């Protein structure tokens, strides 16, 4: 029974992927991408990756889909122009051959995977106790591979700086994106009033539960960012100008605390990101608490895009 369900999910995902590629309209492809992200979430549940399922639902389906749909509206005028420049038939056949070859090679690799599979799970199971957290993925993210997570937080800041740097000189330091207007009695305004209290509690809960259960700062921060975007798109609040001191402080506090705790380990325990005996859990929680607001704000501002208006507009 469950195998039938798995096969059904796989077929639906493939069908949606093909629809995303072949759909005539950009908007339809964007909507299909959201549905596709939600189905991939089901797939993650079946692969027993609950933490990954949460982030896929929030980012893969949610934020990326919303970003594409929002951009598709702004670029509507361009669609006809781009469609005029169609790729010729021989080029399409060659592209299909290349794509088919890559897919076949990957499929062959999947069927030739070694058995038993190499795994680091036993090492994680043995070493998780000293960190004090119960969720092995949180232990990997913030203890065993803390360096990766630190670099990720910094990559996000760099991506945001890169997005901001696309602003025309005249509006540097101004507000990102267009000012959103919505019918105050419409469905968007209604949802933007009803949903955020629930969404904020769920976001904070997922963050709070992350130490011992599936969840964590990335998933929680994404949900908080989504709530902020919902309220902004309904026109209730405006995006802050990017030259505000408080804004920049919140953005860098998380990574700075992360680096400081890493350096603390270098001084007190002999290695960068080595946690002193018995202080593992408090330090991990400190990193999570510091990173959460930074991540939520970074993700929300990445969605908002480059500055397009001066602070007074």
């Amino acid at each position: 029974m469950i195998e039938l369900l798995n096969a059904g999910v796989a077929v639906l995902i493939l069908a949606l992927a093909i629809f995303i590629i072949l759909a005539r309209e950009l908007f339809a492809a964007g909507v299909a991408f959201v549905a596709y992200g939600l189905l991939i979430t089901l797939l993650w549940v079946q692969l027993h990756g609950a933490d990954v399922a949460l982030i896929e639902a929030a980012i893969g389906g949610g934020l990326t889909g919303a970003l594409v749909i929002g951009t598709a509206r702004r670029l509507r005028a361009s669609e006809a122009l781009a469609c005029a420049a169609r790729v010729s038939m021989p080029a399409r056949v060659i592209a299909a051959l290349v794509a088919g070859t890559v897919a076949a090679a990957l499929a062959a690799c999947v069927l030739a995977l070694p058995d038993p599979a190499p795994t680091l799970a036993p090492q994680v199971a043995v070493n998780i106790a000293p960190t004090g957290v119960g969720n092995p993925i949180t232990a990997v993210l913030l203890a065993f591979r803390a360096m990766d997570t630190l670099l990720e937080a910094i990559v996000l800041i760099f991506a945001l700086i890169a997005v901001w740097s696309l602003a025309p000189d005249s509006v540097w330091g101004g507000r990102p994106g267009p000012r959103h207007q919505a019918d105050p009695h419409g469905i968007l305004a209604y949802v933007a009033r009803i949903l955020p209290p629930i969404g904020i509690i769920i976001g904070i809960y997922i963050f709070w539960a992350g130490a011992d259960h599936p969840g964590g700062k990335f998933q929680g921060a994404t949900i908080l960012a989504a709530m902020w975007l919902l309220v902004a798109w309904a026109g209730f609040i405006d995006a802050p100008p990017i030259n505000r001191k408080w804004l920049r402080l919140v953005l860098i506090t998380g990574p700075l605390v992360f680096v400081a705790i890493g350096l603390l380990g270098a001084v007190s325990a002999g290695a960068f990101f080595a946690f002193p005996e018995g202080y593992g859990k408090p330090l991990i929680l400190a990193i999570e608490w510091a990173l959460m607001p930074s991540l939520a704000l970074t993700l929300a501002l990445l969605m908002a895009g480059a500055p397009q208006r001066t602070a007074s507009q």
Partner: protein
Amino acid sequence: MSAPTLFGLCAALLVGVGLFGVIVHPHPLRKILAFNVVGSGVFVLMGAIARRGAAAGLSGDPVPQALLITGIVVAFAATALAVALLVRLFEATGSITLSADAPAQAQGDADDL
């Protein structure tokens, strides 16, 4: 067929489908979407491998699963940057074509602004 093998094969096909879209679509936003399909295929493939690594009472290898969370967030950041570049290109030139013979016309549009 076991779930990891089934979803691993599904992932291989997703990479193929996405790659085809990246090559043939003239519209850059469609290319970005197709690239995200390739990305999700790579993530699912890695997830299938993580699931095969179930051992020691854990239902999957937590190391690749943690890296996947990092990967999905970074993929979103890259997508946001690509979209911002595209919006800026559209604002500056009024066109979003990536073809090589367009700059002359795009330049003309930019002068009009």
